[in-house]
């Protein structure tokens, strides 16, 4: 009974932090977007004037649109309305730049590209990083392994976009091996045909590589440190004394014990990965959420921007929450510590 209540408190605490963080981050963005002098909507209208699309744009026009987007009400009502629309109807409002498409529809067009790219990159770099890190940690006494570690430690902090620029320069422009922009060639028709799939893979290679190269080194560095603490544990000493084969020890004892902490690390690093991936998407003009977010500011579409930010925060924070829940379920040691 005591054990369960300890676990319940743990979950309650996590959910509370999750809700408060999500709520605060979202509220911050909502207010910043509206409280800054010259609201985005008047900027949009100013833009129409400057572009001379309609120099004599009328008050009625502006007022009409303001009503349409609910901007005629005071800011508190707007806030309440937005929140209730969001949580009760999962409605993020209407996009300004691609009026009258709802924001969620616009986001859903880009989301598969981002999730596809990120999921592949994260999985590849995470698994390579852990295996390589465990091996380097295992052999930590050799000169070669420590030299590789030093290089990895330095390179792991280089941001993805520097890698992206270097890769575009060398592989796209220098040798012309891979295309340096877009997600597929404009000459193929999107759909489930081999030409399209091949084109997507070819175009996705450089963005993926620029994320994988640096982030796998990050996993390598942290895994190596973890491996070395595991090597000092009693159960490993016992395994060695028992005369277990090295490969079995590495596989059964070291790798298994690495997976748990590194899974949490994966959740924590997700926000950082998303940050970096958005810039990489923009550099490659990849049609994902990151590029969409940056373009939404260009076109002064603050409804879309707000929607994207909300979806990003929600995804990352929820992934973290799920990981927090799964962790004690998988690892009984944490569960007993929690009481």
């Amino acid at each position, binding site marked *: 009974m005591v054990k369960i209540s300890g676990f319940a408190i743990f979950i309650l605490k996590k959910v509370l932090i999750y809700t408060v963080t999500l709520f605060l981050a979202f509220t911050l963005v909502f207010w*910043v977007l509206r409280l800054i002098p010259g609201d985005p909507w008047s900027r949009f209208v100013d833009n129409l004037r400057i572009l001379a699309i309609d120099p004599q744009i009328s008050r009625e026009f502006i007022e009409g649109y303001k009503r349409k987007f609910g901007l005629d009400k005071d800011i508190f009502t707007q806030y309440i309305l937005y929140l209730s629309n969001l949580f009760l109807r999962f409605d993020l409002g209407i996009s300004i730049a691609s009026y009258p498409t709802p924001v969620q529809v616009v986001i859903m067009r880009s989301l598969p590209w981002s999730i596809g790219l990120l999921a592949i990159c994260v999985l590849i770099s995470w698994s390579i990083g852990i295996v390589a890190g465990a091996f380097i940690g295992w052999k930590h006494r050799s000169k070669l392994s420590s030299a590789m570690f030093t290089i990895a430690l330095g390179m792991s902090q280089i941001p993805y*976009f520097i890698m992206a620029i270097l890769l575009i*320069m060398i592989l796209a422009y220098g040798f012309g091996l891979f295309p340096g922009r877009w997600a597929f060639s404009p000459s193929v028709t999107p759909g489930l045909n081999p030409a399209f799939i091949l084109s997507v893979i070819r175009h996705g290679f450089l963005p993926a590589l620029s994320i994988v190269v640096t982030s796998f080194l990050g996993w390598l560095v942290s895994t190596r440190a973890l491996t070395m603490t595991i090597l000092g544990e009693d159960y490993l000493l016992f395994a060695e004394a028992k005369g277990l084969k090295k490969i079995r020890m590495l596989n059964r004892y070291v790798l298994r014990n690495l997976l748990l902490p590194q899974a949490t690390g994966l959740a924590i690093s997700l926000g950082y990965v998303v940050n970096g991936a958005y810039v990489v998407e923009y550099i490659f003009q990849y049609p994902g959420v990151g590029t969409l977010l940056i373009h939404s500011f260009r076109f002064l579409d603050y409804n879309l921007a707000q929607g994207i930010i909300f979806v990003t925060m929600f995804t990352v924070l929820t992934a973290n929450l799920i990981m927090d829940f799964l962790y004690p379920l998988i690892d009984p040691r944490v569960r007993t510590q929690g009481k």
Partner: protein
Amino acid sequence: MSQLLGTLKQRASAFISLFKRSPTLIVGVALLSLIIFLAIFAPIIDQYRLEGHKATDLGYFEKFLPPSLKHPLGTDHFGRDVLGLHLTGLKFSLIVGALAGSVATLISVCIAVIAGYRGGIIDSILNGVTNSVLVIPSLPILIVVAYYTRLDLVGMCLTLAAFSWPWSTRVIRAQVLTLKERTFVDLARVSGQNGFEIMFAEILPNLIPYIIVGLGFSVIGAIFAETGLRIIGLGPPTVVSLGLLLQQALQYGLLTQKRYAEVMSMILLLISIFISLNLINKGMDEAFNPRLKKVTGQ
């Protein structure tokens, strides 16, 4: 007087022995000094080299001049001397890094020391906030703030600092947690010092190596975050940092024109800042953590 001289000598010899313990530290400090020297004196040298013009002045030279003795990296699409431009960019990038990095470190030291020493509910709250900020993808929020507020240099640095403090906070807090169990803290408590005195007079000096390491990482983080924001096309146009120059280079298709040397020079400048700070951090680790060295067997 002689006593003062004695302490000074002591300090100096402690400083020298620090360098003796770690050659990495010497290399790092030397490289960083060289970079800072270049950034400070480049405008002065440019005054003679560019006939009294600032490197950022538009249209003074011919466009797209190839590299020559006068313009070692040629000129760009605005007729600016590329070398002078990059050194100006280096200066602004360093300023952004130093300013944002120090503010972030200040925040993280305060939060870490208070949370770690006080413990209990204050620690839970501060730790919760730290973890939340750590997990949030900060870029979207940075974009919102940078886009709608038309930030100046200081505003930009403060915004960058607001999201870059959590990593070093975690590291420093862990140190405070071990330090506060030491006997000298007990002694201070018994001798009647209050919590504030213990935190900042007893614990803080012992944290200095960690603070320097945290500062190094914060500076690197701030410089790279600023560069990322600039590449997206945000930030004050008056702050000609390496990020802004990279963005212009990409926008004007320097890569399609195969002007790789210009892009490489910017990336190398960024990477050399990064390498120098990393070497200093590694050197600090070696000098202050000889035990760590034995454990990790490096």
